């Protein structure tokens, strides 16, 4: 790419050639950088190149720079002692440890061992804890009681939930004297029906506990519910909050059952 030359190029040229060349720079005049660039880029023809060499004799500073730079750039092209990577590369490509160098693969091995050890320790700890205190270690989500849910709900929804709890307390008091264990299912059913009917269609249900009819205790309980829910019914406008409460209660079967149990007791 770049033409070869040695400092001998600066020897005087024959007069004939000098006459043909472009006019050389006068004493003290510098050769333009563009001409030097063109020389290194090999973008000047042979004749211009000879003229350039002659000009360098009168521009000692540029000449020194050109010789030094040319020598350095030549050294870039000298062959470099290169290890043969063929074997190691082919080993990696064909399955020994794809994508990773030996050092990286060794490090990955250590990480794998460390991760496996951590998992083993955790599993052993969980097993021992379960043996010592059954139920202490559980990875399943538990249903929360209605009262606890009410505490964690947003303010508006929480108010509704608290009102529901108060209503249910009222209903509980009204059926406590008559309740027997046989009413447990009826109470739970009524609660479910009541909550679904009321909260799902809070704006339209005038008789949310209708399906609880036919049983004395249940009817009384129904009356209690209706009475209690009168408080909630006054919040009909807040359909969104009531629906949220219903969803919480409805999805918490255990909480619902607990409430039913409380009512019966």
């Amino acid at each position, binding site marked *: *790419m*770049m033409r070869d030359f*040695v*400092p001998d190029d600066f020897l005087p040229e024959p007069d004939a050639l000098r006459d043909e060349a472009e006019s050389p720079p006068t004493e003290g005049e510098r050769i333009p*950088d563009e001409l*030097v*660039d063109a020389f*290194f*880029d090999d973008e000047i023809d042979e004749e211009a190149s000879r003229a350039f060499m002659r000009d360098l004799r009168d521009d000692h*500073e540029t000449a*020194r*720079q*050109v*010789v*030094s*730079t040319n*020598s*350095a*750039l*030549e*050294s*870039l*092209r*000298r*062959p*470099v002692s*290169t*290890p*043969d*990577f*063929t074997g*190691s*590369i*082919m080993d*990696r*490509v*064909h399955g020994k440890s*794809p*994508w990773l*160098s030996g050092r990286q693969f060794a490090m990955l091995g250590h990480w794998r061992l460390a991760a496996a050890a951590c998992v083993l320790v955790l599993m052993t700890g969980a097993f021992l804890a379960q043996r010592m205190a059954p139920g202490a270690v559980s990875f399943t989500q538990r249903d929360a009681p209605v009262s606890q849910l009410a505490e964690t709900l947003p303010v508006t929804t929480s108010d509704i939930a608290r009102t529901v709890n108060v209503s249910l307390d009222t209903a509980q008091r009204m059926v406590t004297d008559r309740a027997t264990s046989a009413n447990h299912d009826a109470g739970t059913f009524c609660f479910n029906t009541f909550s679904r009917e009321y909260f799902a269609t809070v704006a339209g249900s005038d008789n949310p506990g209708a399906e609880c009819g036919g049983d004395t205790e249940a009817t009384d309980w129904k009356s209690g519910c209706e009475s209690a829910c009168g408080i909630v019914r006054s919040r009909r406008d807040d359909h969104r909050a009531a629906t949220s409460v219903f969803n919480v209660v409805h999805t918490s079967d255990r909480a619902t059952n607990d409430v039913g149990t409380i009512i019966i007791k």
Partner: protein
Amino acid sequence: MNRAEEQAVIEKAAAGDKAAGSTLIKAHQASLYAYMLRLSGKPDVAEDIVQDAFVRVLTNLHRFDPRYRFSTWLFTIAKRLYVNACQKHKPVYDSEIVGAFRGNGEEPSLPTIESEFRGHARDSIGKALEQLSPEQREIIILFHQQEWPIAMIAQHMAMPEGTVKSHLHRGRRRMRRFFEQMKSPVVANEMEVSGE
């Protein structure tokens, strides 16, 4: 190996021919190693990058676009691996480097490359290259060491040919002035060694 022959070898290697894969490695490992050695200034880094680049290339030969040169693809992957390696092993934290950060996310690694290079260039040409910006350095290596044409460098560097030439000229002028300031003792020494 001309381009047609090389393409045939690439297709064989992509089909699982180990001999073809070895041929590709032997054909390009010396030039890639020389390029990475000058770019990084560290033989161990150059060795790792060369091997990683070939593994990447040989396991992704089906993605090679024959419209381009294989060497361009290989060098581009090697450079990306080098940039990533610099980012991993040499975090940028000194104030000078932070000041030089360009901030547009395009080339966050270049200051890191700069610091990486400064510490390890030891020979005369290395010291001269040390004076250059990363772009100037890489372009000078590709042009004068790899003898790539300007158009190919422009493709590799993802910049217009005029910009490549501008970097090349500025870099070379900076090298000239560096040698002038040094009164070229190291170059003189190299010339003696090489018999010039």
